[in-house]
């Protein structure tokens, strides 16, 4: 048999083969993969992939922030003065009301925390037989 006959015979036999069918589970599997591969929400994507109207809105918002920042910068001397007044009032409140008892409250907090930790360790050892430290 020469090459031409062999090619002809094999070609005829192969062309007569039925088409292998995809398994029944194939379509549901692909649809599940498609559902899992749906693109993320616009805000989870890079800015360049946002919808055009959201890009426009974000540019407008950014411009608004910049304008606000510029306005604040121009009013900075007045703001600094007001901040100093607020700080002076806060210092006075602290010195009069909280300053004297602050150290006592801090010491009390530390003591109570340490006592709780010691009590928890003791209870753990009694209950778990020291397993908590292993």
């Amino acid at each position, binding site marked *: 048999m020469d090459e031409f006959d062999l090619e002809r015979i094999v070609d005829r036999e192969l062309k007569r083969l039925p088409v292998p069918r*995809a398994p029944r589970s*194939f379509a549901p*599997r*692909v649809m599940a993969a498609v559902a899992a*591969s749906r693109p993320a929400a616009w805000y989870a994507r890079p800015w360049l992939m946002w919808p055009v109207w959201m890009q426009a809105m974000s540019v407008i918002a950014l411009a608004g922030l910049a304008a606000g920042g510029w306005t604040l910068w121009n009013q900075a001397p007045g703001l600094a003065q007001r901040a100093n007044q607020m700080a002076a009032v806060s210092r006075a409140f602290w010195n009069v009301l909280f300053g004297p008892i602050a150290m006592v409250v801090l010491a009390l907090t530390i003591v109570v925390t340490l006592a709780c930790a010691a009590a928890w360790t003791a209870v753990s050892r009694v209950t778990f037989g020291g397993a908590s430290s292993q």
Partner: protein
Amino acid sequence: MPDASAFEAFLREYQDMVFATAVRLLGSPAEAEDVAQTVFLRAFERFAEVEPNPGRAGWLKTVTTNLCLNHLTRYRARWQFFSELDGGDGETQRAFVESLAAADPVPADPGWDDRARRLERALRRLPDHQRVPLVLFHFEERSYQEIATLLGVTLGKVKTDIHRGRESLKKALTDRT
């Protein structure tokens, strides 16, 4: 976002064609399913362009073929290398025919008679470097030169591999008839 029901109809229309192309190129139903799934995920990504295109079947076949060749190159030994080791002697032929008695990967559909099942099984069991050019030639209607270009091998090697594949198929058919 493509319409899911339209895509499902598209999937059901072309799933057998894509799966058949993949399973014949890869010789493994499990790997063919993976590749076919990737093909349809690509189609889903570009569904707005693919669906109305009259050449969508050709597009699917091309993508399937390319993905199968990538898969073979990436996940299996390269056919060039094994082809060089395979001398195509009688020993190889005998081992191939004996291997056909192993587990049957061909589904037992009622449309398949014994001869078709034997030929399909023999085709899937061919070594990659013989099966791939043979399938491209006989099922995908590619020329020898196109196959050589696609696989990055010489024209002579494509002809030799296809000839050996045909001999093996003929032997598989005649040994039991």
